[in-house]
């Protein structure tokens, strides 16, 4: 077993690899973690995801923009690909599955993919329906997978009008399902008006929300470990 200093060094490498969007460093760090016999889940959360949290902060501070975020995410994935096969089934106490997609008539999927990625990392089961998704498909998929959460994304005023229809149909069939909407033209007011449970201002805020969600999950996990 590696000593604490070594462990810290490896996590730091993973963290910095993500922040500096250095795929090679992430791959190296991930391999080192495995060779040193470290816990893969821990390496993901305390290394890679902790880096992504910092990236979220840099994004909020407008030091990073969308291209950097995507490159950081690519670096995170590079490490994740190596660590994932070594993961114990993640038991976060809040097992969740989520249906996600961009609504009919809209092909903007960058923001949606960022959110999806964060859910992936957090160990959620993600059913990604892609972009330009027919409205009824969301309802069908939710029923089929019995997911707790549905995320709807729209980037155009012309496509977002489909959202209330989806929300109404899902709530009718399954009132307990949580629905989060996001994308540039949507707003907290619209989310409330349409009966959605959550809202993120745009791709960037959806990312922040997702990061917060992951941070929250991490806290839950830490508390659980303490017990």
């Amino acid at each position, binding site marked *: 077993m590696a000593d604490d200093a070594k462990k810290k060094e490896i996590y730091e490498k993973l963290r910095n690899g993500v922040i500096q969007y250095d795929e090679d460093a992430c791959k190296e760090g991930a391999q080192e973690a495995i060779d040193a016999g470290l816990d893969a889940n821990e390496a993901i959360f305390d290394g890679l995801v902790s880096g992504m949290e910092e990236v979220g902060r840099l994004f909020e501070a407008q030091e990073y*923009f*969308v*291209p*950097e975020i*995507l*490159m950081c*995410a*690519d670096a995170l*994935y590079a490490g994740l690909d190596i660590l994932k096969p070594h993961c114990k089934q993640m038991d976060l106490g809040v097992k969740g599955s989520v249906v996600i997609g961009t609504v009919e008539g809209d092909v903007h*999927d*960058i923001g949606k*993919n*960022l959110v999806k*990625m964060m859910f992936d990392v957090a160990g959620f089961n993600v059913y990604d329906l892609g972009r330009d998704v027919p409205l009824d498909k969301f309802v069908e998929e939710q029923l089929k997978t019995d997911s707790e959460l549905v995320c709807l994304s729209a980037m155009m005023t012309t496509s977002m009008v489909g959202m209330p229809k989806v929300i109404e149909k899902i709530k009718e069939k399954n009132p307990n399902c949580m629905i989060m909407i996001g994308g*540039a033209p949507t707003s907290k007011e619209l989310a409330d008006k349409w009966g959605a449970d959550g809202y993120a201002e745009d*791709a960037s805020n959806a990312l922040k929300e997702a990061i917060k969600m992951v941070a929250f999950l991490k806290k839950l996990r830490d508390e659980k470990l303490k017990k």
Partner: protein
Amino acid sequence: MVDAAPLKQLLKKEGAALVGIGDISKALPREIRHLNRGVAIAVNRGLNKDSIDLLCGLQRSAEDWIRELGFKNLSIPPDSDRRTGKLITRLYKLFCHKTAATCSGLGWIGKNGLIINSRYGSQLSWATVLTDAPLKTDKAITDSECGDCELCVKHCPSGALKGGKWSLSDPLKQMVYYDRCKALKSNRQRFDEKPNCGLCVTICPYSRKSRKKSMKEKI
């Protein structure tokens, strides 16, 4: 304002035929709006077999030069449509090389839908580095210089060229029925020929003039 002359010199020394700096702020989608300068880089396809590798190398040199000054950059690779699998590749299709080329004054869009440079014709491959470095920009080209010539339109084997005149006042005007060009391409592939037709490149008088010149240079 940052003087771009040293960057241009560097890239030309490394094999670029043309380098220009364009103000591309009017052509940027939200995700990359802060990167309002485009460094347009072209290499002569007639002289370089592996123009894609060369362009990627030039992009890396430009990135390093810009990073050294403390600014951001994003390279759109020459073969942007073939890059997949990573998240960052999704941004590539938000920008097209022709835009940087016209904005930096290196060419107009010919009736063949391609960038025509008055010296090299369209025998050029392009790559772009987007940046937020306040590089001194070159003057954009505003109008087509095809004149009455219609050679490419007449000879395109798939009838893909519409024959309109491009101008910066209507930059997004569609000049090409891409589906026709694409269909021809896949047909030829089936017969195991070289898939790229490229007649619209070779027939253009500007390209022919350039080819003659570079043949002379080789000898």
